[in-house]
Every structure is written in C-alpha cells, then in structure tokens.
C-alpha cells in the first residue's frame, strides 16, 4: 500500500517531505497548476498548500479503485456438514471458541465429529487460532473444520497445520505441524523451524522413517543445547526398537545428565541391548534367594562399592550432598530406576503388590520405592494399581500420575467418594489431572460430585481457589450428569467475584447441555 500511496501522491508530494522553499516551485498536474498560476501574489508556501488541497479534493472526488487485476481466488465449496448460522448450536460453538477452555474446545470438536457436522463460519477463525496454540487439539479439530475451515486455513500461513489434513486425507497425519510434502520442505523446517516445529517434525519423521529421523538427529546433536537434546531423545519412547541402540548408546556419554538418564532408561527397555544386559549383570547378584527352613525368601543387598563401569551407564558414583539416601542406597536406587519393573516380577515370581510389600519390609525400601516410581511406564498398569493401593498412601504424592496410567473406569475406586471429601483432601487436581481434555469422568462419579458441587455454595464462598477448579470439574463431568444440573444458588451478600463464578458455572453447563442436546 505504501507504494500505492506514493504513486497516488505523485511528484508534488516530494517537496513537502524535504521542505518547501521558493526556489524549487513544485509542478502540479496541468489544470491545478494552471489555476494556481492565475492567483497573484502568492508566496511559495501558500501556493504549495493550495495545490495540495486541490489535489486532495480531486482525489476524493474521483474515487479511484485498485483495478481488480485478477479474479478473486476460488470460493470455498459448499459443505452440507457445516452448522448453519441459524442453528442453535452455532452461537454456542462460537461462544465456546471465543473462550479459551481447552476442555470445551476438545469436547465441541468431538461432539461435532460424532454428529458428522462441521464448525459454523462464526467459530472458524478462533478455532483455527486455538489449534495453532495447542497442538494437541489438532487431531480433534481437523476433522470438523469442514470445507470452509480448510479453505480459510489455506489463506493464513499461521494455520498451515490444518492444510495438510486436507491434502493427505486418509493418511495418518492429523495433528501435525507442517506438511511433509517434500524432502526440501523437511530440510528447510529442520534447519530453520522453531524448536516446537522441529520437535513435531522429528516425531513425524520418526513415525514414518525411523532411520531418517536418527540420521537427522545424529547430524545435529553437536549443535543442540542440552534441553533440546533431551526433548528429542524423549521422542524415542514411541516405537522404540533395537535399531535405536547405537544412537542411544552414544548418548550415554552425553554432556547432559538428563540426556544420559533418558538414554539409559530407554536402553534398559531393550532387553537385548548391551546396556540392559550390563544392568542385569550388576543388579542380579544383589537379589538372591535364601532358604529358611522350608520357606524360600528373596533378599536384596545394595552394592558394596561403586563400579567404575557405571560412569558409562549414566550412573553417578558420587552421592549428591543433600540426598536423603545413604551412599549404598543411592547406588541401588540408580540401578532400580533404570531397570524395567517387569524384570523384578520375572526374577522373583512375585506380583507388584507382593514386591511392594516385600520391599516395604527391607532395609532398602526408600531406594527401591524411589527407583520404581521413577521407572513406572504406561505399560505398567498392574504396578500403578499396586502403588495406588499401597498401605498408607505410600505413593500419595504421585497418585495423579499413577491414575493417569490406568483406564478411566479403574481410577474411580481410588478417588474420594464425595465432593466435600474431594475438596478437603486436596485431591481435586489429581482427579482432574488424570482426565485428559476430551475425556469425561465416569457417569456415576460425575453424578456424585456434580450433585456435591451443586450444593457447594458455602464452600465456594469461603474457598476462592476452588472456584477455578469447580469450573474445570464442571467441564469434565459426564454430559449425562448435566441434565437438571444447576449452579449453587446465589445469596444476597455474594461478592461480584463469586457471582461471576456462579454465573460462569451456569453458562458452562448451558453450553455443554446445548452441545449434547
């Protein structure tokens, strides 16, 4: 536009930029110039200012549009799936995406997908922005963008993540950050992309061509800061295989402690890897069976001395000064946090609950418990169950993570049985945290705590930190538990903040009911 303006201004503009003086009288185009000549006695300034006024008046009175050089780009194809502006869901969806609740965004997308519908026009721009900010919304968002949304996304470079979904419909590419159309594009992004983009690209390449991903990472390892190296190594978790051993083994000598730990942990999960075998060779002799009368009993001893080989296996011989563990326990703990939990069961024939009980009675309880909780992995559902059940909430501070490892239905029996208890126990975060956006709490449990929330006016009055959580809780309730649900009634002396909170609860319930009507 600046070029247009300058052109529209023409030569007569320049003198006013550098300064008018009498010597250089600017030339105005013919009729204006001639008219100015006819006025006597003007100084250069007055002449110029009048000329500028005349030029301005002419321009205003002869509106000139930019010629429509090209036809506009093709319009979006019709899409019968798109929610029309007149449908009741349209304003509700627009309102949900004007807000920034990740849970509601997920829920709206999932619901539309279930209905076989696409987002209304009014919600598209904010929905595409939400997807730009939160990569994990994208798998849910892309299927409900519809023709209009994809058309719109192609016009805005910020929304390119959505475009790929259209080009490769049917391929398993949803949720990706950038298209992988060409090797050149991958190379460019790998070299120039932001950290998040490169991480997403790496995950994608790793899923499709693991060897290529390893090459890419190997080539750049030297240039990456430790934090980024660690993030890339963490990506090896998905699709971990024997082919990864060489690269990971190299990383055992990485300068970054976190990188070494991650690599060691991953290698330990590859039973055939040299690292896993060394680890077993160190740990196995410590775990022995002794026979007392007719009973066989497993006993464990911690290492007596540090092994010089440990340094190459991401195990620190030197105990940190302030660590709660003694020196030998520190060594044992480090071995335990690398060894897959399955190994202990296989070795002793005990199940996780029995192992926890056995370790609880041993001298090395602290070291083992700490190692095991750090080792637990999403394949270890039986361990999570056993740790949650461990007497005295031995793993209490980890319940959130442990619960997330269980299927939702199995979580319920670990939760407080009422809303009041939920608030008192301070475990609301744990319950909500185990329930990812797009997941709901089981129906019976939703009814139980929903009812409690409905009667929790007094608690909300006293506990302002609960207000935010109450909103999240309401967003995570099973939709069937919302029928007839009402926010706690108002009281005459409510503060504006509380009134806002109650109105917010009512609004969220209404939006969600509309969504599932």
């Amino acid at each position, binding site marked *: 536009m600046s070029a247009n303006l300058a052109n529209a201004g023409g030569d007569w503009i320049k003198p006013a*930029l550098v300064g008018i*003086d009498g010597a250089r009288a600017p030339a105005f185009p013919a009729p204006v110039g001639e008219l100015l000549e006819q006025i006597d006695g003007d100084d250069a300034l007055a002449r110029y200012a009048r000329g500028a006024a005349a030029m301005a*008046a002419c321009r205003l*009175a002869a509106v000139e549009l930019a010629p429509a050089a090209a036809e506009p780009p093709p319009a*979006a194809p019709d899409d019968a799936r798109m929610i029309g502006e007149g449908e009741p869901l349209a304003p509700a969806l627009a309102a949900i995406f004007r807000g920034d609740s990740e849970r509601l965004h997920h829920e709206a997308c999932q619901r539309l997908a279930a209905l076989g519908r696409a987002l209304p026009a009014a919600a598209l721009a904010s929905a595409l922005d939400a997807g730009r900010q939160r990569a994990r919304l994208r798998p849910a968002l892309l299927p409900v963008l519809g023709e209009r949304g994809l058309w719109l996304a192609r016009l805005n470079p910020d929304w390119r993540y959505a475009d790929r979904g259209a080009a490769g419909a049917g391929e398993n590419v949803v949720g990706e950050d950038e298209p992988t159309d060409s090797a050149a594009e991958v190379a460019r992004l790998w070299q120039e992309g932001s950290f998040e983009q490169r991480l997403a690209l790496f995950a994608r390449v790793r899923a499709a061509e693991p060897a290529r991903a390893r090459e890419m990472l190997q080539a750049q390892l030297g240039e990456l800061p430790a934090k980024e190296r660690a993030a890339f190594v963490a990506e090896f978790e998905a699709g971990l295989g024997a082919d990864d051993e060489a690269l990971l083994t190299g990383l055992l000598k990485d300068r970054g402690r976190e990188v070494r730990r991650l690599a060691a942990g991953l290698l330990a999960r590859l039973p055939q890897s040299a690292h896993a075998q060394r680890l077993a060779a160190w740990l196995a002799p410590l775990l022995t069976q002794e026979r007392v009368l007719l009973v066989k009993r497993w006993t464990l001893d911690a290492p007596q001395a540090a092994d010089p080989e440990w340094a190459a296996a991401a195990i620190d011989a030197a105990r940190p000064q302030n660590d709660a563990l003694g020196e030998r326990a520190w060594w044992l703990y480090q071995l335990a946090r690398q060894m897959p939990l399955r190994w202990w069961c296989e070795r002793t024939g005990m199940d996780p609950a029995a192992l926890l009980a056995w370790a609880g009675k041993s001298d090395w309880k602290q070291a083992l418990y700490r190692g095991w909780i750090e080792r637990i992995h999403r394949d270890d559902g039986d361990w999570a169950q056993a740790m949650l059940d461990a007497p005295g909430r031995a793993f209490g501070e980890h319940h959130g993570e442990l619960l997330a490892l269980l299927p939702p239905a199995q979580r319920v029996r670990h939760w407080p049985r009422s809303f009041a208890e939920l608030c008192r126990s301070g475990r609301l975060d744990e319950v909500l945290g185990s329930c990812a956006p797009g997941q709901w709490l089981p129906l019976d449990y939703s009814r139980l705590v929903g009812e409690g929330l409905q009667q929790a006016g007094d608690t909300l009055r006293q506990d302002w930190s609960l207000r935010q959580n109450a909103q999240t809780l309401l967003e995570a309730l099973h939709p069937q538990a919302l029928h007839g649900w009402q926010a706690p009634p108002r009281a005459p002396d409510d503060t504006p903040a509380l009134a806002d909170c109650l109105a917010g609860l009512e*609004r969220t319930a209404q939006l969600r009911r509309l969504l599932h009507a």
Partner: protein
Amino acid sequence: MESALTAEQALALAPDGASAKAATGLASDRHWVSLGGDAEALWGECKGSGAKPYQAQVDLGALVTRCSCPSRKFPCKHALALLLMHARGGIAADARPAWVEEWLNSRRDRAEKKEQAAAKAVAAQAADPEAAAAAAAKREAARWKRIDQGTAELQRWIGDQLRRGLASFGAQQRAEWTAMAARMVDAQAPALSAQLLAATDAMAAGIAGAPAVIERFGLIWLLREAVVRRATLSPQRLADVRTALGWVYDKDDLSTLGESVSDRWIVQGQRIDERDDRLFERRVWLRGQASGRDALLHDYAYGGRGWEQQWLDGRAVEATLRFFPGSAPLRALALEQGAAQPAPRWSQPAADAIEAASLAFAANPWLQWWPLALADAIPLYENERWWLHTPAGRLPLALGDAAGWNLLARSGGRALQVMGEWDGRELRPLSAWRGEDAAHNWSLAA
C-alpha cells in the same frame, strides 16, 4: 408481546464481551424473583448483592433499559438477560408492576417536558425575536473571533511544517503537533484538534503516512482561507466550514436551518468507540427507504449513562430526521420515531456507490466519511492486507485481523453485501449480510 429480538441481536447490544457472558449466565428464571412483560416493556427482579433484588426493565420500543444495579455498563447484564430470556420466549405476559409503570411514565413525561422546553424556547424567541437574535449573534461573533485567531496560528504552523519538511518528523515534532492539537481545542475548533492528532498518529507510523498528512494539511489550509472569506460563502458552504471546524449546530439552529425528512429508515451499520475518559462515541448510519437519503446519527454517552435510543442493524424505524445543513448533508438528529421493525437491508452496485461518494466529496472536500453499502462484494486477504473485490475494482479495508478473518470465514469467498464508512482512502466495514435472512447478518465493528 411482539417477538422482538433474537438472542444474537440482544447480545449485540452488550457493551462488551464480559457483559454478554454475564448476561447469558443470568438468563435463567432461577436467578429472578419476578419476571414479566407486556407489549411495551419487560421487567424483572434479580437477586444481587444487596438485600433488595435489582429491578431491571426494558422499554421494548426504544430498547432503552434501566436497572437499579450499580453497574456502569449500559445496558447492564440484568437488562441484557431480560432480553435474552424474552428472545427465547421465556417471559410470560403479566400485569405491569408499579415501579415499571412509574418508569415508563417518567420517560414519557421527560419526552413531553423536552418538547415543552423546546416549544418554550421557540416561543421566547417569537416573543422577543430581536433580543434573542442579538444574544445569539453576540455568542457567534465571539466564537468566530477565537476560531479566526486559532486558524491563523494553525496556518502559520502548517507553513512551518511544510518549510521544514515532513521527512524530519521525530519525537520533538510529535510533542509539538500534539500541543498544537490542544491549542485547537482552546480555539473552539475541536474537529481540527482531532485532525492534527490523526496526522500525528499517521506520521508516527512512518513516512508512508506522509502523503495523507500533506493532503490533510492542504485541506486545513483551504479551510483557513474559507474562514477568512466566510462572509462571501453560500449558507451551505458556511455550514460545511462550521462542521469541518467541529462547530456543531444545536437543536434550535436546526429548527430553522435544517431540512426535515420523514421516512422509514433502515439501520445499515454502526460503530461505537470508547474514549479514555468513559466517553463513548457512536455513529449510526441510516438509509431512507423512500427518500434514498443517507443519514448519520452521531452522538456521545458519558460515564456509562447509555444511549437514549438503541439502533439495531437490519431493522427499520419510521422517523423524522432533521438534517444538519451543508453541501452534502449527512448528519442528522432523530426527532420523532416509531418502533423498530425487521426490514430488508439496502445496498447498491459498487460503481453507483463510488459515484455517489465522489459526488459527495466533490460537493464538500472536508467530509470525514461517506457510507458505502456495496452489493456483490467479496472480501479478500492479499499482500498482507484486507480488500473488498467488487465488479468496479478493489477497495482497501480498514479492518483488524480478527475481524478480517471472521469476515472471510463468513463469506467463504463468495459475494456479500458490505456496509462501511469510506474515508476517502479506506473502507471501514461495519456490517455485512447475505440475502435477507436475519441469521446472515453480522455486525463487524467490535
């Protein structure tokens, strides 16, 4: 009760997003101690923070609301909630309680008193026309004197700026220009003050803004020359000059100078700007169905007192407007008006609209805006800015990014009707619609 507004239209009245949100939360009868309505009004008592519930009421004709709550937002969330529930058919007809009756009566009384006062003023003038005229002439002469001095100073100052050259604009100039803008307020030429502030902003954005500023300076120079020669100007031209200075005619002036037009006026679009000091400025654009006249209602609201009348896009109101004089009269006051009814929107081919705008600017180069209501317009995003593609060419749009993408999403790349304010360089879209379905009608100014 006549079905008045849709929920969307009711929410469009909200002064901000927070009020709209709060109102949706309140739009359920469990928050209300009482609710009722009839053909003219809605009312309800809402539990609030005081011992006594808030009494909220809506005059459905003028869409004026009142509430006993302390909110400075206008309309407040309670009144909006009433409209929302009404839209859903959730308010049953009922006999009017005394407090509603009182309010409606007091509104009627006030309107009558206003008319009486106006009549009195006219009568006073008629009783002693010479004295009244003499007093008015004295006031006018005093103001012209200040304007004369102010514009003379401004002309010298513009000369200095042009002599120095705009390329050297920097922080020091910025301060000087702002100070000059303040001087124009003292000179009782507030519109010139606004012009100078706009020029300062344009320069602060870079040298690309300079051509527009030079044109603006030229037009101000011309205005100064017109002030000097005001005795020789035609009444219309003199009115143009006064308007360009920001010297607004008052109601009494209009009763003699202004032209009255009765018509069914379609509300085409509107824009509300919040100024720093709780001052709201509103421009409502109307189009006369029979007269084919464009009209601008330009008013202000202070301290959250709200507007005397709400105008909803896409509705039409029978009203008599009195136009401010001028070569291309646009601004008007609404005198008598009936209730609003849904109405088809009006638009015209871009070539015709451009022709009308060109004629208006030719008649008065100091016009600030001219309304364009374009049929067959496709919004576009190209070269990192927003455009409107029409069969007559492309108009640059003055549009924020969020509003731009929303407009694009709604168009889907197809032609819409778009109404906006043309300032001679850019079109600021205020509303867009497709066909006659009220659901495809969007207000863009946010």
